[in-house]
């Protein structure tokens, strides 16, 4: 008998599917949810920036289940494993709900701060007092905030230049380059409709970045040819038609050789280049020395393969060479700002811009809110020296910061008195141990949902709401050709009295009174209906749909907000500030060659695992059960030579870094080896987002490796010496030694 799914489901529903027996016997599957008291709300997931649409099932005021919102054109009604843990994010056993104040003056790793609960108003008053004192004595620059950009408004209103965001370790290299070449950052690759997908380390499908993973797989289903260059056999590689192992950090050489082939063989899109591109002459001239034979010597990829793939990429249309945040062209390697530029040149000269299946500028229609009163001129220069990188600072003015240089910079800045950490785990900062030393004599205020490691340095801890479920808001994310706004709704009553936003306003009010200025007027106050003006919908109406796409035909938008009005293959801003406008290969960024590796030395790299996102997922029981620790990935052949077996305890220590500094065991971690054929014999991988030492977290596994134990703190001067326009972190530019414990 053949019955369709619909009929089957109907049949099940009609017969009640032995409900009577089940009602008695199902233990874990709790009794069928009563229809009374159950309500469904639309909201958006708060785990990552994709903000997938969510339908939240709430029973008697308690969140019981979440699932994807099928109206969402990006996430298509699905949520990744991280998003599905919403219930455990909201009702996490370790969650704090009351402000805490330190009673033990001694700060440090594993030293119990002996927290005492205090009242909300009392805590705010204390913070305002400290801020007022600091501003009076040292000026507004003595206030620093590290973390979420939401809090930056307050710092700007006060006139402090010291607000820092994590961009240098996250999305800086793709986004800044995109901004200067195309006039807008966060470009969208239409992988779903592409016929050719060329990935240089791009592995968003392996991170389970929901909209991108689905688009990629749909592209594969639609018959796109996928080619992957990566030293690790990633999930993207496992779905690829062709996979090429490449020496770590040498992707740029291959891309330059591909541009060389396309230019020499006249395979580029002449009409498009003439009409919309600036700087092609320079590209033609400079790229001539980068032959595929040269690239073969550097990258280990055969020259004939480079030629063939370049030809295929140029002649198959539409095609994409994607990049997104970390991973492909991300800030894991210093050279990657050049890789991002080279990949965008490749995309532009083949004419795969603003066509279906190619590259798009993000469509955004939310109206930006400006404060009533313009903030004052900042008091001095940012302490990390961001302003000395003019290209970087012009783009990143809103959320600046050299995260990797912050520990050094903070320890030198005596005038800093109050430091805010807003949703930022200190473990995410490269060289975090130095940061702890720097913070010991500062007044530290922490906003968090979980009592993580940052709380060990806090003088005052403010609990916050869980993003996506306990506060209202709007979000607009570009993952497809059409703009779309999604709602963030309060679906359950938060266990905390004030959210971060409320505390910010309270501080502004009280501090303003003390200083005699109206700080509230300098803050942008969100008005949802006004922001939604271009969509032609109100916030109340949006509650009915959850998401609302911008209606209308798709129109290519070939106006570029750059100084020349064209795609700047060689950005004019680089020339203006005296930087090299062409992404020339430079040996100094990857001074490590395979031949220089000693027997027990490896190139280091890191990647994200589907169920992990930095430290946000570190204390979720379902996730810790499924994926408790991050092992050290080693190729079995190489491990055999070193006498390492699967599951052995190993020590990983840094030998040298990209700046040529040598280390002898200062930076090391202990972990468990995982022998896997998925890595090149020259490379070891440690996934990130694991490990803990906070004793307040009862679920996170302390055997996990804290990756930033390995990443050395850096200084702004080192970056200035290299004369790079975009000082990205380069976390993975390390050579490590792996020894059996």
């Amino acid at each position, binding site marked *: *008998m*053949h*019955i*369709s*799914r619909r009929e*089957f*489901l*109907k049949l*099940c*529903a009609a*017969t*009640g*599917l*032995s*409900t009577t027996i*089940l009602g*008695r*016997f*199902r*233990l*874990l*599957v709790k009794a069928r949810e009563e229809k009374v008291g159950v309500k469904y709300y639309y909201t958006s997931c708060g785990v990552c920036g994709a903000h997938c649409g969510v339908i939240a099932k709430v029973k008697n005021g308690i969140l019981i*289940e979440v*699932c*994807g919102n099928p109206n969402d054109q990006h996430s298509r009604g*699905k*949520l*990744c*494993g991280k998003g*599905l*843990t919403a219930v455990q994010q909201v009702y996490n056993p370790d969650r704090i709900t009351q402000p805490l104040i330190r009673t033990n003056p001694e700060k440090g790793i594993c030293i119990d701060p002996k927290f005492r609960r205090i009242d909300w108003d009392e805590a705010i008053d204390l913070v305002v007092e400290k801020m007022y004192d600091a501003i009076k004595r040292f000026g507004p620059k003595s206030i620093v905030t590290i973390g979420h950009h939401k809090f930056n408004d307050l710092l700007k209103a006060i006139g402090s230049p010291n607000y820092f965001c994590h961009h240098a370790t996250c999305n800086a290299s793709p986004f800044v380059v995109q901004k200067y070449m195309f006039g807008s950052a966060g470009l969208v690759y239409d992988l779903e409709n592409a016929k050719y997908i060329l990935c240089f380390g791009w592995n968003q*499908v*392996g991170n*389970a970045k*929901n909209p991108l*993973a*689905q688009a990629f*797989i749909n592209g*594969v289903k639609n018959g796109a040819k996928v080619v992957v260059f990566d030293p690790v*056999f990633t*999930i993207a*590689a496992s*779905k690829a038609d062709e*996979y*090429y*192992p490449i020496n770590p950090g040498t992707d740029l050489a291959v891309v330059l050789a591909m541009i060389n082939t396309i230019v020499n063989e006249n395979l580029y899109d002449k009409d498009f280049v003439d009409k919309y591109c600036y700087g092609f002459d320079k590209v033609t001239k400079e790229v001539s020395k980068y032959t595929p034979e040269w690239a073969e010597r550097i990258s280990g990829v055969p020259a004939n393969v480079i030629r063939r793939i370049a030809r295929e990429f140029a002649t198959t249309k539409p095609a994409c060479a994607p990049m997104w945040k970390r991973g492909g062209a991300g800030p894991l390697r210093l050279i990657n700002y050049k890789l991002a530029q080279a990949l965008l040149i490749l995309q532009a000269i083949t004419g795969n811009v603003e066509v279906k299946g190619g590259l798009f500028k993000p469509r955004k229609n939310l109206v930006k809110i400006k404060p009533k009163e313009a903030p004052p001129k900042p008091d001095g220069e940012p302490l990390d020296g961001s302003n000395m990188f003019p290209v970087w600072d012009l783009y990143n003015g809103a959320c600046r910061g050299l995260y990797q240089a912050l520990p050094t910079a903070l320890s030198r800045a005596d005038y800093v008195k109050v430091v805010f950490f807003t949703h930022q785990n200190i473990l995410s900062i490269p060289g975090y141990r130095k940061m702890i030393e720097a913070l010991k004599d500062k007044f530290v205020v922490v906003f968090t949902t979980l009592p993580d490691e940052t709380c060990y340095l806090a003088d005052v801890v403010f609990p916050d709401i869980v993003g996506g479920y306990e506060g209202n808001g709007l979000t607009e994310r570009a993952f497809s050709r059409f703009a779309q706004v999604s709602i963030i709704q309060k679906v359950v009553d938060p266990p905390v009295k004030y959210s971060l936003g409320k505390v910010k306003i309270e501080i502004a009010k009280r501090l303003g009174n003390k200083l005699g200025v109206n700080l509230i007027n300098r803050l942008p106050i969100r008005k949802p209906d006004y922001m939604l003006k271009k969509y032609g919908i109100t916030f109340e109406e949006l509650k009915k749909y959850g998401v609302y796409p911008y209606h209308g035909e798709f129109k290519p938008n070939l106006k570029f907000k750059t100084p020349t009005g064209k795609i700047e293959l060689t950005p004019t801003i680089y020339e203006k500030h005296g930087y090299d406008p062409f992404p020339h290969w430079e040996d100094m960024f990857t001074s490590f060659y395979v031949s220089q590796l000693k027997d027990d030395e490896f190139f280091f790299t890191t990647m994200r695992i*589907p*169920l992990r996102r930095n430290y946000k997922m570190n204390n979720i*029981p*379902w*996730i810790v*059960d*499924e*994926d408790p620790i991050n092992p050290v990935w080693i*190729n079995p052949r190489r491990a055999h030579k070193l006498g390492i077996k699967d599951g052995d305890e190993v020590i990983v220590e840094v030998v040298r870094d990209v700046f040529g500094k040598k280390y002898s065991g200062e930076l090391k971690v202990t972990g468990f080896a995982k022998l*896997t*054929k*998925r890595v*090149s*014999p020259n490379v070891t991988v440690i996934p990130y987002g694991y490990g803990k030492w906070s004793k307040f977290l009862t679920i996170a596994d302390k055997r996990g490796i804290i990756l930033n134990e390995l990443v050395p703190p850096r200084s702004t001067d080192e970056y200035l010496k290299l004369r790079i326009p975009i000082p990205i972190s380069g976390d993975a530019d390390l050579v490590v030694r792996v020894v059996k414990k």
Partner: protein
Amino acid sequence: MPFFIFNPEICIGCRSCIIACKQHNKLPRQVAYRSCVEVERGEYPNLQLTFFSIACMHCTNPPCMRVCPARAIYKTSEGIVLVNQDVCIGCGYCAFACPFGVPTFNPEGKMVKCTFCIDRLEEGLDPACVSACLTGALDYATSALEASLKKKEGWIVLKF
């Protein structure tokens, strides 16, 4: 009779199915009805990497049911294998008999396993794991005929 069917070609090993299952069935710690197996074949760089998402197969002739001394394991008319929690004595014979290592034991010591989300089927919904699968790699067929048609398209029919 429902069959889980699986397409390893498009599975990305994201484990959404596992978390969705845990969420829907409100599973306690250390209990999972579904697991994800990673298989590496070949040598680097000529490697094949595949994932398999596996739960109870709801066998036609379940070995667990045959060995259960308490007769706690039974099969519904729709072909779904269930455990009567009131009767289960937690002896663990089913775990020995099952070729796939499906039976797990909850903190009370009773055997628990995939129920094919029978409660969701009643409401006219797909099982939690199927509806959570990001890429559509995990699905189910409702009859042997449908399953065999899918098999020709490269799907794996998870039935024993």
